[in-house]
């Protein structure tokens, strides 16, 4: 485990998380959420949880994001907050 990398990714995770709920565009939020999931997946891979990381990569960063995008596509991108 390289702690500098670890710390960097942890910070990025938090940034992506905050970004996902702050950005005023739902599509952007969805993509940021995908990035968040991907960071998370990296983090877990670093921590040795390869199976979990694998799952998160395919589910969190992959399928979840697609779900989000299709939901946003069928509703609206507009948001007030």
């Amino acid at each position, binding site marked *: *485990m390289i702690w500098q990398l670890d710390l960097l990714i942890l910070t990025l995770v938090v940034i992506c998380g905050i970004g996902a709920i702050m950005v005023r565009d739902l599509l952007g939020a969805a993509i940021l959420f995908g990035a968040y999931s991907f960071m998370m997946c990296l983090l877990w891979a670093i921590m040795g949880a*390869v*199976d979990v*990381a*694998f*799952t998160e990569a*395919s*589910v969190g960063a*992959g*399928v979840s994001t*697609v*779900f989000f*995008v*299709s*939901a946003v*596509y*069928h509703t609206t991108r507009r948001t007030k907050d």
Partner: protein
Amino acid sequence: MKILGLVIVALVGSVLIYATVDFPPFADPESPASLHVSPRYIEKSLDETAVPNVVTAVLADYRSFDTMFETTVIFAAGVACFLLLRIPRRRPPGPRHFRHRLTGLTFRVKDGENGKEIFLPLREFEPVDSVWTPHDFIIEKVCRYMIPFIQLFGLYVIAHGHHSPGGGFQGGVILGAAIILLSVSHNLRTALKRMREKTGALCSALGVFIFAGTGALCLALGYNYLDYRALAALLPGGPIMARSHGMLLVEIGVGVAVMGTMVWIFKNLASLGRYDEGL
């Protein structure tokens, strides 16, 4: 609402921080979690189940009952999406749109006399929605060539889950993602041709059934539920290998269920239950 949110967050956060102080240090090999139950999994699983990937062994054998319900959760979510979104009604009468495959020209076709539908040869024309949907040649082609490899990889992940990271769930998601990719890069109709709605839905239920059925088979053979040793009566290799085989069977079930459900949920979400063009 914002203030309430902050107050609640502060309250919960303080409880969590309060507790964290007493946590065993991070990554401590002497922490209780590392000493009590898990050592047995690491030390014995190879002997007891003949599966080197401890995660798979625990997932599909020691705690297989959890995993069965995990599959059930996914199945339930699929059924839920279907129940809520799917619009079972037939297409409302009115003009339809077709695109000529070669030229990309779009035709508007009205229904014939007495509401009879006019069929165009689907080899040359494809139905499209009234809204214009772009199609990109490069993406279509690249994806078309990638998808078989993705699927192959998915199968590998399921099959090789005993020895490397992966297993039914991850493989199932990858297989499902392949279909999703197809419908994103082309359109939903194309994906529906590859995997009809009924097939996906039945896969979803069938996967759960394979899992639960394997357990019930063990029960029928006189062992406890999901005790794969029972399968030694049917498969070669003795009780330990039977556990390994049982796990494979179960992982296949999980894979089938997850693939079917992921596609199923996506189809409903992407077309609002109408099963037309999709995204």
